[in-house]
């Protein structure tokens, strides 16, 4: 264990309901989630001196602070690159706490991503943003490549070509997620498992991706309270210690279209993985389960390879025969993932990691002493190892 490892812990988790139309503002959703997270651990808004979120979030740290009645903030920050920010918000909090810059940092993310701005649609805003990301998008959007599904499909097709993976291999992820969601009352797809036949029969969105390879669009918010390891021991819940927290960007990196390097997979997740193992001193074999970001199923297979759970091109065999379902050798996304529970930009996956450490998940993995959690894939990203 080095540096940051074990210095901070997630002690509170909170969320709104996950829906297709929240009926209230994105700011209100985030405020509600933070309130729930503070109640969860027995702290109050008066204890909070740091807030961190995604660059993409529409609710600023100062707006959230105003609504919560937080008088002074000593630390506030944002992380870029869409869902790649999720675990990095916890890294920001842990670093601020480990260095004494702040004592109680809340990470939040809230949006009406189904009832207002739908991320699954072609985004003119992404194509016209006045910065280098907008300039980068000039090489794809005007040509017609401008939805998340299509950008991922380009990598998925190449992966199939190189390693012989099939659509049904991708479908194994969807089946596992939906099985886990089926027993999670908080999941949008509670009580609605699918079969591989359902996956194969779902309509093509961006060939080779079927509809059931794509995550939901959701309204909702999640918040996480982070404090020092010492303070965590005095609070209401069993701490989920941050054993490792890492960010990663690869060679010739673009936001979602890192197509110009030899390997058009997700080497940035390899950067994250190597750093997680280095910080924690743990290895893939030490992980009884994982929460792998699943906005699109092919990336779950690629992540298993980048993180070292199996060799390059071996993920199709790894996920076969229920291996990533409860009772299998590496259960994934036990809350149902973003395909099954909700798409809250990866923050709901971190909350599930905390529940597994606490032993309060609806789909508990026995002896889950460590949980690996990853953030958005195909983008500059981040990851965590949480430990009991």
């Amino acid at each position: 264990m080095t540096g940051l490892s074990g210095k901070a812990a997630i002690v509170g988790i909170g969320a709104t309901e996950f829906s297709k139309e929240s009926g209230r503002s994105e700011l209100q959703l985030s405020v509600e989630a933070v309130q729930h997270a503070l109640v969860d651990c027995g702290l109050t808004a008066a204890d909070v001196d740091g807030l961190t979120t995604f660059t993409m979030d529409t609710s600023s740290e100062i707006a959230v602070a105003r609504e919560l009645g937080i008088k002074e903030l000593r630390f506030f920050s944002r992380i870029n690159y869409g869902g790649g920010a999720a675990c990095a918000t916890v890294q920001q909090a842990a670093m601020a706490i480990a260095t004494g810059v702040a004592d109680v940092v809340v990470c939040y993310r809230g949006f009406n991503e189904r009832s207002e701005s739908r991320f699954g649609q072609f985004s003119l805003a992404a194509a016209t943003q006045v910065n280098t990301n907008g300039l980068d998008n000039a090489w794809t959007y005007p040509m017609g490549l401008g939805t998340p599904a299509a950008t991922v499909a380009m990598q998925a097709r190449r992966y199939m070509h190189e390693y012989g993976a099939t659509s049904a291999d991708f479908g194994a992820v969807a089946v596992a997620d939906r099985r886990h969601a089926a027993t999670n009352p908080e999941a949008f797809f509670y009580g609605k498992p699918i079969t591989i036949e359902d996956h194969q029969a779902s309509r093509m969105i961006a060939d080779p991706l079927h509809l059931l390879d794509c995550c939901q669009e959701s309204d909702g918010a999640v918040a996480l309270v982070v404090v020092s390891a010492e303070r965590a021991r005095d609070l209401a819940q069993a701490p989920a210690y941050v054993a490792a927290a890492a960010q990663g960007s690869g060679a010739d990196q673009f936001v979602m279209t890192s197509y110009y390097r030899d390997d058009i997979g997700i080497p940035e997740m390899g950067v994250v993985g190597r750093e997680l193992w280095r910080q924690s001193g743990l290895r893939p074999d030490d992980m009884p389960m994982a929460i792998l970001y699943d906005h699109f199923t092919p990336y779950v297979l690629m992540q298993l390879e980048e993180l070292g759970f199996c060799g390059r091109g071996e993920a199709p065999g790894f996920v076969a025969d229920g291996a990533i379902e409860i009772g299998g050798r590496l259960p994934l996304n036990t809350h149902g993932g973003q395909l099954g529970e909700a798409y809250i930009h990866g923050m709901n996956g971190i909350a599930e990691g905390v529940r597994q450490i606490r032993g309060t998940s609806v789909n508990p993995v026995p002896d889950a002493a460590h949980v690996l959690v990853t953030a958005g894939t195909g983008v500059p990203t981040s990851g965590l190892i949480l430990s009991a």
Partner: protein
Amino acid sequence: MSVRPMIGRDSRFFWDGTAVGELRVQSCNACGELRFPPGPACPDCGALDRGHVVSAGVGTVFSYVIHRHPPVPGKVLPIVLALIDLDEGVRMVGEVTDVHPDEIAIGQRLQVDFHRVDDDLTLPIWRPAPQELAQEPAQEETA
């Protein structure tokens, strides 16, 4: 309505090229390295001395997508989108026309054409290459 590219000082030469029927690829005036997408510096040698070459406009499909949903501004779906390895050694995204979605394949040879959207925008567009360009050029040996 078609999606407009954001154009800056570092990329204008490319769009000036499509307007006159040239597929321009950045080349470093100091070391000769080709690069796509373009930028102000040469990541290979660090020189801030951008030039360009005009590509022969022939390449090979590295990967592809058949986009069916949701709608894309200015396009009638489905559309075929490909990652194309140009014979000069750089890779770019393009729409492939005159190809049936069932017939696009990795390794297929394509040739560029130019689609004049209006006075301000001309997009490169790709079609199956004629027979005489069907052979991929021999790869240079790399150490």
